[in-house]
């Protein structure tokens, strides 16, 4: 890292530290009640306590992450497979597109009451809704990716007499990959959200339930600790996906 980059990071970090200092001052001076805003030290203490060996926050974090990942993986596989089938055929696309466009703005969490009605309050129910919610961004992105193949490439494949299967595998799929990966990133965000909401209303062990209980019991430092960990999950999952995306799409900016 050259000196200019280093100083940029330091400056940015200093600004963040300044905000933390502001937080410290606000909570200590009582500008905002400590019921709502715990001190930074208290939050750190809760984090430490929860993350230490045997601490419950680790178990909660793993539970939420597992839920998020399972639903996301399931949704991604189904989304790509279905999306490819729909995307390659203009007729199927035309028939299904309006329905897909209708479901797109629907909040995934809105399926929770229906899922509860059908499956009761269980981990499987939450997983079902997580997967359902995460399905749409990937599905729609895949359909779009397969539908929007460069016409010139279609002609090239035609001239080379490429079989339909070979066309989908060698041209359709790589062409759709940027869209698919972007959809998968969006799906991950949805997975996390629905996992958390699912835990909250179905009383499933995880960070979602933990922060809800902490709020109800007015334990602000535990609440903030939980929120911070959820932020970490969001950050890490997004960062890993972005990294994978850059590696897989290195041909875009070689």
């Amino acid at each position, binding site marked *: 890292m050259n000196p200019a980059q280093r100083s940029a990071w330091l400056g940015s970090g200093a600004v963040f530290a300044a905000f933390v200092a502001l937080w410290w001052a606000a909570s200590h001076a009582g500008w905002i009640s400590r019921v709502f805003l715990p001190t930074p030290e208290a939050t750190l203490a809760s984090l430490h306590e929860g993350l230490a060996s045997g601490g419950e926050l680790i178990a909660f974090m793993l539970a939420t992450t597992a839920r998020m990942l399972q639903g996301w993986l399931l949704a991604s596989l189904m989304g790509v497979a279905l999306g490819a089938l729909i995307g390659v055929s203009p007729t199927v696309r035309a028939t299904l597109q309006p329905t897909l466009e209708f479901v797109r703005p629907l909040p995934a969490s809105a399926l929770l009451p229906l899922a509860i009605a059908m499956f009761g309050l269980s981990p499987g129910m939450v997983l079902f809704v997580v997967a359902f919610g995460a399905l749409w961004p990937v599905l729609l992105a895949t359909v779009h990716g397969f539908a929007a193949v*460069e016409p*010139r*490439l279609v*002609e*090239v*494949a*035609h*001239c*080379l*007499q*490429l079989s339909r299967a*070979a066309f989908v595998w*060698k*041209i359709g799929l*790589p*062409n759709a*990959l940027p869209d698919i990966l972007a959809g998968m990133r969006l799906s991950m965000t949805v997975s996390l959200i629905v996992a958390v909401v699912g835990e909250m209303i179905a009383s499933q062990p995880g960070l979602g339930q933990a922060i809800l209980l902490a709020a109800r019991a007015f334990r602000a430092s535990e609440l903030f600790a939980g929120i911070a960990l959820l932020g970490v999950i969001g950050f890490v999952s997004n960062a890993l996906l972005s990294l994978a995306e850059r590696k897989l*799409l290195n*041909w*875009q*900016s*070689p």
Partner: protein
Amino acid sequence: MSLLSFDRVAIHLGGREILSPTSFEVERGEFVCIVGPSGCGKTTLLRAATGLVRASGGEVRRDGRPVTQPSREVAFVFQDYGRALLPWRTVQGNVALALEAAGVPPEQHAARIAEVLAKVGLAAHAHKFPAQLSGGMQQRVQIARCLAQRPQLLMMDEPFGALDALTRQSLQDEVARLVRDEGLTVLFVTHDLEEAIYLGDRVIMLQANPAPGRPSLARMLPVGIPHPRDQLGTKEHPEFLTLRRDLFAFIEHGHA
């Protein structure tokens, strides 16, 4: 029997007659250039010969058999090379596509790709992506892919239209050399009259908006200039100048 034969081929598109019934033959080893203004149907004619477009009337025959769909015997070079290459594959990978499509066993790929890349002078760039190549190089990748097909016929649709003048000239000579070495038959569409005369053994001139008494096929002239040709000498050759004058004059005064 001629390799390619156009038997009163007519093409209608969007309710309009793009090409009036046109007939001519292309012999093996010939380099035929088709020129004409925009809208005269030259690209459409090329596509019909390839099987990408079906003729509305008449028939295109290759080796005596009607052309109804593309075949690996016929390679097509598109003008917009950027859109005709797979951006996610390297130069090597793009050429490999032709071999994969033809079912060539994977063990033979490396050798054949290397052979063809050497012919177009891209051996050193085998592992680059299209985004890293200049326009001229990208077009050579496309040509390499076409050569990898080992085709009978090479169709070229204004292949150098999107390139700068210097690159165009060097590619003209490269293609002329390649075609001679491989013994290919070529159908070459261009709007550049001089390019057509420089490269072709025969120049076919089409005109737009055909009408009774004014067919699409306006002129068909042999080019007797000997091979190999060069950018300086050939363009001062008397026959070059005569043909050039003839064709330009036709454009100027040839319309009804």
